[in-house]
């Protein structure tokens, strides 16, 4: 099974981080990522640029046409600022890895299971077993 670790930081976390040298933060995260890779469980992981530095935006689908704005990013003040996807054998194993993430006060790690085909029995009816779908062809550049 796959889990996504969603890193959420509040203003408190941002303040706490100012106390720690940037190199130290990078070193700790690097060591954590390294441990996930060495254990053979890391499938993906990225950090997201702080919204104050980079003009991210939000597309709202409430009406036609969609409204594009520069926020708010959610109901809470907890910014989604990075993620990992790990492949493990149990919920407990996901939790054990999540506990080890080098985060401090004001940070939260939301752990969610990634949907897989086994979770969607309804998908079986979309599987046209006798006809290979042409649109499943890999396209140049995205493989």
């Amino acid at each position, binding site marked *: 099974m796959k889990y996504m670790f969603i890193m959420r930081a509040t203003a408190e976390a941002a303040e706490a981080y100012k106390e720690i040298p940037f190199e130290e933060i990078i070193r700790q995260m690097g060591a954590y990522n390294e441990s996930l890779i060495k254990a053979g469980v890391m499938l993906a992981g990225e950090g997201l640029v702080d919204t104050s530095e980079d003009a991210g935006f939000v597309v709202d689908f409430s009406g036609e046409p969609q409204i594009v704005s520069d926020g708010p990013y959610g109901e809470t003040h907890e910014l989604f600022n990075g993620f990992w996807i790990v492949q493990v054998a149990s919920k407990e194993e996901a*939790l054990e890895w999540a506990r080890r993430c080098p985060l401090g006060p004001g940070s939260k790690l939301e752990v969610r299971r990634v949907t897989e085909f086994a979770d969607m029995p309804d998908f079986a009816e*979309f599987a046209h077993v006798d006809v290979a779908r042409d649109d499943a062809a890999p396209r140049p550049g995205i493989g």
Partner: protein
Amino acid sequence: MSGAEGAESVKRRIEAVWRIDGARIIAVLARATRDFGLAEDLAQEAVADALSQWPESGIPHNPAGWLTAVAKRKAIDSWRRAERLDEHYRALANGLELEDGVTWEPVDDDVLRLVFTACHPVLSREAQVALTLRVVGGLTTEEIARLFLIPVATVQQRIVRAKKTLTAARVPFEVPEPNDWGPRLGGVLGVIYLMFTEGYAATSGESWIRPDLAGEALRIGRVLAGLVPREPEVHGLVSLMEFQASRFAARTLADGKPVLLADQDRGRWDRAQIGRGREALIRSDGLGKGRGSYALQAAIAQCHVMAPSIAETDWAHIVLLYEALVRIAPSPVVELNRAVAVSMATGPDTALGIVDRLASGGALRGSHLLPSVRGELLARLGRTEEARSEFATAAALAKNDRTRAALQERAASI
């Protein structure tokens, strides 16, 4: 320490810790004691202590450090009890006491030694598989028994005997010498791939694929790739397993019936996993040492997963890759696969010649593979009666229920 927890949740927590840290704990102990079997015993005793103490005392902040420290203490106590504190053991005991159990920095090399010990040629294949899953993969004997559909007692027995064999053969806790390196690494890769293929096409039981077992093999393969990143065949094996596993979701219907490659919905193949397979093959090729048998098989699998359909698959390139593979790793199964590729590239006639040569040599006797391929070729040549009888023969030989049913269906459908 966190508060007291239920025994069951503590047990699950320990299992999770063990999957993550078990190999490194045993590796540290084995280096310190120079005794693989003892290291495994000590680690098990520490786990037993944790199972009995943690529900009361709560779970320590650093569970792996706690387990290691307890295991080391047990080692020293047992030597003291046995009054074996001669020069050798005194040195080991001192070394153990000097190392702070909580901030231990395990070394990758120790884990690599562990891998080579668990897959040592003095052990049977079954023992190698069980021991690798146990000490490298950090699985419980119950989990291993479940994966292979065998009794727990059988797994325990295999592991106990394996440890005794390693002791009897005086196997050192070391990586192989340079001139022995290639064959020994090949042995390790073989153990991992054996686990994977048993998960990819189960030889017995009801279900055709067991993704959990294949997943364990893939995880251990990735661990090994991290330990010996300069070995092209390790990346080749990881690549092959990623490509094969990327098709799992399409290989069975909701009711568990197998779906053959030609009939699979390619939209259900895991593109992210295919990407990881490609990256691993690029890493293998990038070392500039040429493709070994795993990298060649990965390249073949890549041709399949990159193709939009069976008809648009680069069969000519697959034939080339099989020709190379037959030369460096000849086997009847590879030859049979080459025949299938030839039939797709140039037609069933030539392919039937290859299959008939195999059959007359007595290759693959007792396996359903050869008659099922032969049946397919005869069907394409319009030799319906012969095809039907080949499929019936194949069905009678199939050991897996799902495969047998599919072959019977194929016989009836011609």
